[in-house]
């Protein structure tokens, strides 16, 4: 007669690797990642045929400043950062609301949305550009050919990565129940979105933003074929004239990307156990 239910069990991670094993794995992977960076740095320090190493190329670049042909790199950095911001905005303002709408109100459309979002990963960039070229010719007539228009194409190529990152978070959070709970408590859809859903999707949104920034900063093919200037196309131009400086600039761009990702991470740092309010006096 009585219903039987099991106890709520909070299980830890079964067979989690020991601290030593974790350190070993991290060390090996870190080592593999560091090798190319060390090689790049070593390359920029070479003194040429004379042999030996020094900082002459680094100091020449910083003392002389980015003038002449290198000036273009600064413009390209600005372009790439702007494109990254534009692409992240497309993800946040278009993709996220669409995914939430499908998840909460139209779950039957989920497979279709997933298919559409994953599609760009199966299309080579060159094919994508062939398709985009006529679109951009129309776009150029309507809105000009500013570099910002690239963010529309980038918004498409980051879809598969951003979708997976956000969807993983959506699957981990009971979005439907949380939104219903908020609505019964008097929240309108705006409050549901900004006070309940987005804070709980922060990890997924951050991951999506990370990926979008990383993809945009490393993108070359589409920008080159559509004759737009971004960081990668500028580095290629520089490398033809001075490969040493191009590698130095590549290293600096990597540091810039790292700082940018760090900034995004800090902005979205999660609060897990440090409540804003202190306990009520006398109630603890």
């Amino acid at each position, binding site marked *: 007669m*009585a*219903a039987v239910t099991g106890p*709520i069990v909070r299980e830890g991670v079964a067979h989690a690797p020991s601290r030593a094993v974790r350190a070993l794995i991290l060390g090996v992977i870190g080592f593999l990642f560091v090798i190319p960076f060390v090689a790049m740095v070593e390359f920029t320090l070479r003194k040429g045929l004379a042999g030996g190493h020094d900082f002459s190329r680094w100091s020449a670049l910083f003392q002389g400043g980015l003038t002449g042909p290198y000036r273009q790199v600064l413009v390209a950095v600005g372009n790439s950062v702007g494109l990254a911001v534009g692409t992240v905005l497309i993800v946040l303002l278009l993709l996220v609301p669409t995914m939430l709408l499908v998840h909460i109100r139209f779950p039957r459309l989920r497979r279709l949305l997933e298919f559409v979002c994953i599609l760009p990963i199966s299309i080579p960039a060159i094919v994508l550009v062939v398709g985009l070229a006529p679109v951009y010719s129309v776009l150029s007539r309507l809105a000009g050919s500013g570099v910002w228009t690239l963010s529309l194409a980038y918004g498409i190529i980051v879809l598969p990565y951003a979708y997976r990152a956000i969807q993983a978070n959506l699957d981990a959070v009971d979005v439907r129940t949380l939104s*219903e709970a*908020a609505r*019964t*408590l*008097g929240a309108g859809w705006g409050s549901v979105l900004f006070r309940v859903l987005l804070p709980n999707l922060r990890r997924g949104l951050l991951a999506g933003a990370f990926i979008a920034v990383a993809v945009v900063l490393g993108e070359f093919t589409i920008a080159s074929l559509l004759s737009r200037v971004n960081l990668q196309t500028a580095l290629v131009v520089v490398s033809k004239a001075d490969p040493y400086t191009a590698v130095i600039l590549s290293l600096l761009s990597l540091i810039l990307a790292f700082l940018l990702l760090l900034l995004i991470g800090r902005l979205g740092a999660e609060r897990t156990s440090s*409540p804003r*309010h202190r306990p009520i006096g006398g109630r603890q």
Partner: protein
Amino acid sequence: MTRNTSNTPLDTPTGSTAPAPSGQAAQTEVSSSAATHRHGAVVEFSGVTKDFGGHRALAGFDLTLHAGEFVALLGPSGSGKTTALRALAGLESTDAGIILVDGVDVSTLPTSRRDMGMVFQAYSLFPHLSAGENVEFGLRMRGVAAAARRRRAGDALALVGLAGHYDRFAHQLSGGQQQRVALARALVTEPRVLLLDEPLSALDAKVRVTLREEIRRIQTELGITTLFVTHDQDEALAIADRVAVMRDGRIEQVGTPEDLYSRPVSPFIADFVGLSNQLTGMVRNGFAELYGTRLPLLDPSQADGTVLVAVRPEDLELSADGVAGVVTASSFHGSLRRTRVRFADGAEVSVQHGVRLHPAPGDAVRVRFTGAPVSVAAAANPVQAGSRP
């Protein structure tokens, strides 16, 4: 039912948790609304219908909840009980019918404006907020000042026995504690109706019993009209003023727990509420005849003929005389034991008896009918009718 006449923690003035001067509750802009809701709202479902792509979840659903009443919606999976509750909350639209709260049709009101508190089956605490902030959420949506919010949230947590858990996050609470916080969150806004959608189903048995008693205590204290959805008849019978049993989107029977158990209107109710042995018998002259035993009928006007008779296990006993049978199984239930006995015609019954008797499978026993059948209905297929304990 006891109505709230005292100052409960939720009615505490926003400035202090101590009693107000002269023993009167100092009403504030926040707690003044509680006065109108303290005795709960009257809720009326009238002809509510809801289809889900060809499946009719609610088929002319009618039910009235009196002010301050605790009504349990009981029924098997798919009977429409959760749909009815969600329709009242505004989480499901209705295809036909009206839902009145204190005489006002709320059918078209958005969920956020229906002023109802709800506790969900799934854990629904906002993970990014602490327990206290979760409880504050509804007050924040109503524009309550920060200090008052914090104080009332603390009071609500104290009401559910979690006074020291204001800063805990959902992942730091057990399942039972999370549902207590959810209850505090639903109650702190002093809603017109409290909706409970199987809030205990994810908890272990002992916590369920404790928490359901807590829910009933708090509901009685606050006098809030409550609709409680469950598929667990024990829960429904234990805490509800009235129980409405649903089947195929309609109410099959609504009444007090005692009514449902003792006077079920159909074999379905007799079978669903409590255990029953359903046996084929005959009605003659106002008596049911089962295996040569004449049993008085609750409704002596029952027409003569072959019938399906529902007899409770406690209305059977193992004795020296009666119908011969063989024990097929016997199970221990703490203060009682239930033994299944197969008669010579293949019918099986469940007999409830004291724990001192230890019948073993294969034992030859005799079963005596000692009480009146709880339900008698014309047998649809008398030949196959047997027992379904």
